[in-house]
């Protein structure tokens, strides 16, 4: 039994890579993950990745912002210290709209991006878990778990036939730790 943990298929072209993924899947070889220098449209369906729910998160945070704004302003101007401004109503709703809108946007943006960083483990100083250094530059890297898919020669063959420019057998999962 070899020590190989992951097999990486390097593609120079995103279309070749998509083709490679198709071929792997036809042969019942599961793809662990794919690392690319740019977003690849349509890959989620191929790998069976669910739609992101961040939109709902943003909506929730946005709504929180709206409610925060209206309740804060109402408390301050209507309940805590009502001021007589030319005899106009204390609950001057149209005047509250701009800040309600601003806080909606503020909460939605920060809440959504914060959630995004949290679920993807993105944080300043976090050690990058990178399987191949060129995946952020010019290579489209398909990673296959070598322990779960044992026919390594076959995987090599499929990748090469699909147009992989390089196939790597890595004994470490991440190359980015020095």
């Amino acid at each position: 039994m070899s020590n190989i943990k992951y097999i990486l298929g390097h593609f120079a072209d995103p279309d070749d890579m998509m083709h490679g993924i198709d071929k792997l899947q036809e042969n019942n070889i599961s793809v662990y993950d794919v690392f690319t220098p740019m977003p690849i449209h349509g890959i989620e369906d191929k790998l069976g990745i669910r739609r992101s729910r961040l939109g709902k998160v943003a909506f929730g945070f946005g709504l929180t912002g709206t409610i925060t704004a209206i309740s804060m302003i109402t408390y301050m101007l209507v309940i805590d210290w009502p001021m007589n401004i030319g005899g106009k109503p204390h609950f001057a709703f149209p005047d509250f709209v701009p800040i309600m809108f601003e806080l909606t946007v503020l909460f939605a943006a920060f809440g959504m991006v914060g959630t995004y960083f949290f679920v993807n483990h993105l944080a300043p100083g976090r050690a990058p878990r990178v399987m191949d250094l060129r995946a952020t530059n010019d290579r489209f890297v398909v990673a296959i778990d070598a322990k779960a898919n044992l026919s390594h020669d076959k995987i090599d063959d499929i990748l090469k036939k699909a147009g992989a420019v390089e196939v790597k057998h890595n004994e470490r999962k991440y190359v980015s730790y020095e």
Partner: protein
Amino acid sequence: MSSHHESILREPLVTGENITYSKVTEDILVPVENKPNKAWWIGFIVSAMGAGLWIFSVSWTFWFGVGEWGLNKTVGWAWDITGFVWWVGIGHAGTLISAVLLLFRQNWRNSINRSAEAMTIFAVICAASYIISHMGRPWLFHWALPLPNQYGSLWVNFNSPLVWDVFAISTYFSVSLVFWYTGLLPDIATIRDRAIGTRRRIYSILSFGWNGSVKTWQRFELVSLILAGVSTPLVLSVHTIVSMDFATSVIPGWHTTIFPPYFVAGAIFSGFAMVQTLLLVTRKVMNFENYITMFHIESMNKIIILTGSIVGVAYLTELFIAWYSGVEYEQYAFLNRVSGPYWWAYWIMMTCNVISPQLFWFKKVRTSIALSWLLSIVVNIGMWFERFVIIVTSLHRDYLPSSWVMFYPSWVDVGIFIGSIGLFFTLFLLFLRVLPAIAMAEVKLLLKSSSDQAKQKLIAEKSVDKGQAEYYIESLEKYDSISPKVAEYEKV
């Protein structure tokens, strides 16, 4: 959409030969990974001197108070708010490019959005510094926030547009920063994975551990789209609220309902002019001609002429409504603007904003780099005068003729203004050195669909209509950045 080919009739967004994914990285990271050239140093030293002047003048203001400015009891707002509105307006183009053009799927934004967003952030920093320093006692700026205090608590007045502005500007700045930085993550990761030693460690911290996996990219795209969706109304709201600082007052010349759309159009107008000013130089100095092509320059010029014309219509509408209102104060305010002691400011504004951008109707002007650059500066001057005209000419002759005065800026006013330009350019030049000025990941997206190379390949494969291919080749000659090798095409 890597396999999607767009129509051959569309102009290429990336030009040059042998463009590969790694060449995009190499080209764009040249200024980041190498020592700066002479042009950068000259620019940086001059800007840093400006920034030094800014620090000196602002410190002077903080120490001695706003009495050091040229303000008097009639003109209580002058260069400070002029500068504030000018800078905020300039900032708006960045959001427009990154958000509105994303929603409209304008792919030409991909190579200019990064630097435009950076410009937004630096411009808003300049604007915010004006707000802080015009407060008189800047250490009490937190009084503008709804914080509990010892007066019972006496809260801020949420009916006031000035309070709306505090919320709008701070939301705008922080959301723009988040939008910009999220977009930067994949590109910082690219720098990280190419660097060694300390550089690598620094960019590793900055990259937040980005790895470019499928799920990261999927969520990244959704986050960008939603941020664009919320930033679009945000940018409109910000300048609307800035205009309401004036429009909700009862000063003749300010108290008009046209202000929000008029300010927003003016903001986009001046912002695009500033993007043009910066990018025409950047593309030359940094050798980005293949990514910021003549098509980009022309597209921005088209937006400048559109928004410039909207601003022109707004000026004329203002004049008409002032006359048509029948209110003599309103009529006088505008008559005074056009022909009073500040007539020259009004006519500089009219010439620079309304008349000279009309030259962009000529394709020769639109596609001339020198003229585009010159006109972009002219627009920026015009837009500064617009704010000056609105603010000072509406105030300097108030209701009591005995208190009519002129405004004369002091050296502190001038120092802060010139200094803020220095600060802006210092920050921008530093940005060019440490972060990729073009969004690499987004340009890579265009490579297979919208590059000149991809289109040439299609023509070579004869998979496109012959007439359309000829049209495309002909259109290339109109760009100075591409010298189509006609001979090569003829072989095809």
